């Protein structure tokens, strides 16, 4: 019994990782596309317009018999505006102007002057006298035909995403009249996902109306709620075989859903964890090297977030560019402020860590109040650029929000960057030397003061980077830093001082732990439990998960 859950969690970890990888790959692909296609698309639109005008003319001039054929042609033309035209047509709102022969859609047909818009371009054309407007006539037979066609017309547009959405929307809504049309569409469809969604929609209909056991096979493994609802209905059926098959399919679906939920929790946990890592890693550096608790760390993060806001104020038209630019800017602002703090205050408190803690706390109060006075006590809005908003749908039960994915990637980059600095550069070497033994490092000719300045600048700069990232997921306000400072301390204390890997593991595991507890205990209680857990953990391992070993340990 005890093996199963652990096996399942291991499996879910693996699947979630795979999903993340594939999601990243999917995301990378469509980025460049729109610009490259601009000109050919333009030509296509023009060609489409001529074709559409011809079809609309046929619709206006033909006999009712020919109109029926034209309707089919319009529906099959895969023109995105087809739905609009046909809906207007069915409602007596598609018309031709008598003087220019332009096709218009009537928006408001009250009074003598009607509000109209161009049917081809969608541009509003103001009001025209109703005498100038020649409404294209329609009869009841055509309306019936239109109703059937309209129900599947979204399945005929050229954009597969829209087709998919339409097909998914149809599930559970299929009516007897639609089936023949749907079958036709299904056969013609060549996009695999759309096809399977259509198959599902038809299967739900079949299961509901004909108790078709084959439909259960099709629905088995589907994650949509409509499929589950249909299977549930089938499970209540009085045919024992059908009910048994439906129940079996349902239990399989439940297992799959559980897996997806686990993956989602893991994703949220890792994303929260990566935020914690970002927030804590700068702190870990300054604490590890200088033994200095920088209580103003949270406020340096706040400055980074405000830099993002300021950048977006400077470049109001391109929030994406502003965000990218604020990465170096946020680093610089926070690093400079950090160096200022080090030079003006911390330098005078060498070897008195508790006093440093108090002094930096005072600085944090001043910075907070400064932002309140100079900018505003209210939260500022930072715009999320388009390429960062939205989410990736892995399957119907699991979708990952993009901004968190970006932040995870960003955290990973920052972590790797810091690791490289620590491992590969001269500065890193000196920092490690000073961390291990300040006196000996100085005796070997390392200028410890310079190392202090550089480390403090680096740690503060990373706080600024964390702030830039945080501006995308939380409110940017004067209290931003306060909300994260205690969590960051917990991560540093939990991971062990002076160990970047410790910070990474601690941040990710605390984030995941928090998310695991949340559905079971609620957000606040989860946080309390995590805090208590750390307080107890510190009793067992006072130097954190990965304590420094050997001579460096006694500091």
């Amino acid at each position, binding site marked *: 019994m005890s093996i199963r859950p652990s096996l399942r969690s291991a499996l879910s970890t693996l699947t979630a990782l795979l999903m993340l990888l594939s999601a990243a790959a999917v995301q990378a692909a469509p980025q460049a596309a729109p610009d490259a296609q601009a000109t050919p698309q333009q030509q296509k639109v023009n060609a489409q317009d001529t074709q559409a005008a011809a079809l609309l003319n046929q619709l206006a001039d033909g006999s009712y018999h020919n109109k029926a054929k034209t309707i089919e042609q319009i529906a099959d033309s895969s023109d995105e505006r087809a739905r609009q035209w046909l809906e207007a047509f069915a409602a007596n709102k598609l018309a031709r102007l008598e003087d220019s022969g332009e096709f218009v859609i009537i928006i408001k047909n009250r009074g003598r002057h009607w509000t109209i818009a161009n049917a081809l371009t969608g541009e509003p054309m103001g009001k025209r006298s109703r005498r100038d407007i020649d409404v294209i006539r329609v009869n009841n037979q055509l309306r019936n035909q239109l109703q059937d066609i309209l129900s599947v017309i979204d399945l005929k547009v050229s954009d597969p995403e829209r087709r998919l959405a339409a097909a998914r929307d149809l599930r559970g809504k299929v009516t007897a009249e639609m089936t023949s049309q749907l079958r036709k569409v299904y056969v013609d469809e060549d996009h695999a996902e759309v096809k399977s969604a259509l198959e599902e929609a038809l299967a739900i209909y079949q299961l509901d109306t004909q108790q078709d056991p084959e439909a259960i096979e099709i629905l088995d493994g589907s994650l949509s709620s409509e499929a589950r609802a249909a299977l549930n209905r089938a499970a209540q059926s009085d045919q024992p075989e059908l009910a048994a098959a439906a129940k079996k399919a349902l239990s399989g679906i439940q297992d799959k859903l559980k897996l997806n939920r686990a993956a989602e929790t893991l994703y949220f946990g890792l994303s929260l964890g990566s935020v914690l890592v970002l927030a804590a890693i700068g702190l870990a550096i300054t604490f590890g090297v200088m033994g200095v608790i920088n209580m103003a760390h949270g406020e340096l993060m706040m400055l980074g977030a405000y830099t993002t806001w300021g950048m977006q104020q400077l470049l109001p038209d391109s929030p994406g560019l502003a965000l990218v630019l604020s990465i170096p800017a946020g680093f610089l602002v926070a690093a400079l402020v950090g160096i200022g703090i080090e030079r003006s205050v911390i330098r005078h408190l060498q070897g008195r860590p508790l006093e440093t803690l108090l002094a930096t706390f005072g600085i944090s109060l001043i910075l907070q109040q400064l932002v309140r006075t100079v900018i505003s006590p209210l939260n500022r809005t930072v715009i999320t650029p388009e390429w960062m908003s939205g989410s990736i749908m892995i399957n119907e039960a699991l979708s990952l929000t993009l901004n968190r994915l970006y932040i995870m990637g960003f955290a990973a980059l920052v972590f790797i960057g810091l690791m490289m600095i620590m491992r590969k550069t001269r500065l890193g070497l000196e920092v490690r030397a000073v961390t291990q033994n300040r006196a000996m490092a100085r005796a070997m000719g390392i200028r410890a003061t310079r190392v202090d300045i550089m480390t403090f600048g680096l740690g503060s700069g990373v706080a600024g980077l964390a702030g830039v990232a945080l501006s995308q997921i939380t409110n940017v306000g004067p209290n931003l830093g306060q909300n994260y400072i205690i969590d960051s301390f917990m991560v540093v204390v939990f991971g062990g001082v002076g160990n970047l890997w410790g910070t990474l593991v601690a941040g990710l595991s605390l984030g995941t732990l928090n998310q695991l507890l949340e559905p079971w205990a609620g957000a606040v209680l989860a946080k309390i439990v995590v805090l208590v857990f750390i*307080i107890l953990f*510190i*009793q067992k391992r006072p130097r954190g998960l990965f304590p420094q070993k050997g001579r460096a340990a006694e500091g």
Partner: protein
Amino acid sequence: MSDLISSHQAPSANAVNSRHWLAQPFTEKATQRFLLVLLGAVALVSVLHLAFPEGHPLHVSTYTVTLLGKYLCYALLAVAVDLIWGYLGILSLGHGAFFALGGYAMGMYLMRQIGDRGVYGNPDLPDFMVFLNWDSLPWYWHGFDMAWFAFAMVVLAPGILALVFGFLAFRSRVTGVYLSIITQALTFALMLAFFRNEMGFGGNNGLTDFKDLLGFDLRSDATRLGLFIGSGLALAVGYILCRAIVSSKLGRVSVACRDAEARTRFLGYRVERVQLFVFVISAMLAGVAGAFYVPQVGIINPGEFSPLFSIEVVVWVALGGRATLYGAVIGALLVNYAKTVFTGIMPDAWLFALGALFVLVTVFLPQGIAGLMQQRFRRRPEPTAEENAA
């Protein structure tokens, strides 16, 4: 006392204290002077309040009396923090938690005293429980209708928390910055917990709308004066107790723990026991301060648990001067008076001033005001924290 601090045959301390350790403070000139000033001031305020009618220039209003009473509670809290920070080297950033726990114990008693005079008129349940549709009193509220039990809990609740927390922390030798961070996490966790309605302590509104204490109407001037005098006496008793502890052998060992923990341990003293004992006493004093505070301000809510408050207490002590006890009192009174004035005139400037105070005191005034005074009077300083004490 001696078996508390030494494991076995520890080297016997010199016989400085021939008197009983509790009587020792009364022989000290500085303590006598402090008590004289404190009790004199309390008496003076009381007399001015009672003897002169309202509107007379020498009259001290009830508002001022209550305000001063509040300051005295803060001063007692500061003394408690100074006891462990100044003489034991433990920087607790969570002493507000013990203060608030004492306050909540008192608040629960006051809530039960309301009886059926609440808005909903329920004789058994406090208003907020009726509001949340609770049908019976949670188990931990039982007994708080009895004064003796509630007053015992004022001391016991913070004491037990400090005992458990300190036992775990000191046994694993969590000290220095780590301990500070952990105490801050403790008070933060408690704040989050008390904000929850489900905890049964009134959620973010806390406990308020008190009516009377031991049968005295809390809104009457006489009761308020009584609470002020009580706070003054509590501060005096707490001060004497701390003084007695620090001048006893235990106090000397605790100063040794502060300055050289490892060496003290090697000499055979049970450092963790000394730390635990002093820590628990300090937490209890904080609880008493909270208990006097609540009836005077008329409310207790989870805001008292906020890490900002706890760290503010530390800066009172730092400003006054560590390891002097009277410095803590001076710091608490000064900072809180400044806070009242500042937040009255220009509220925005207060956080600037407080922040600057943190920085300036730590950088330029490591010995605090008490240190300045000692330099000025060219006397041999009391045992003060050395520069490199962490």
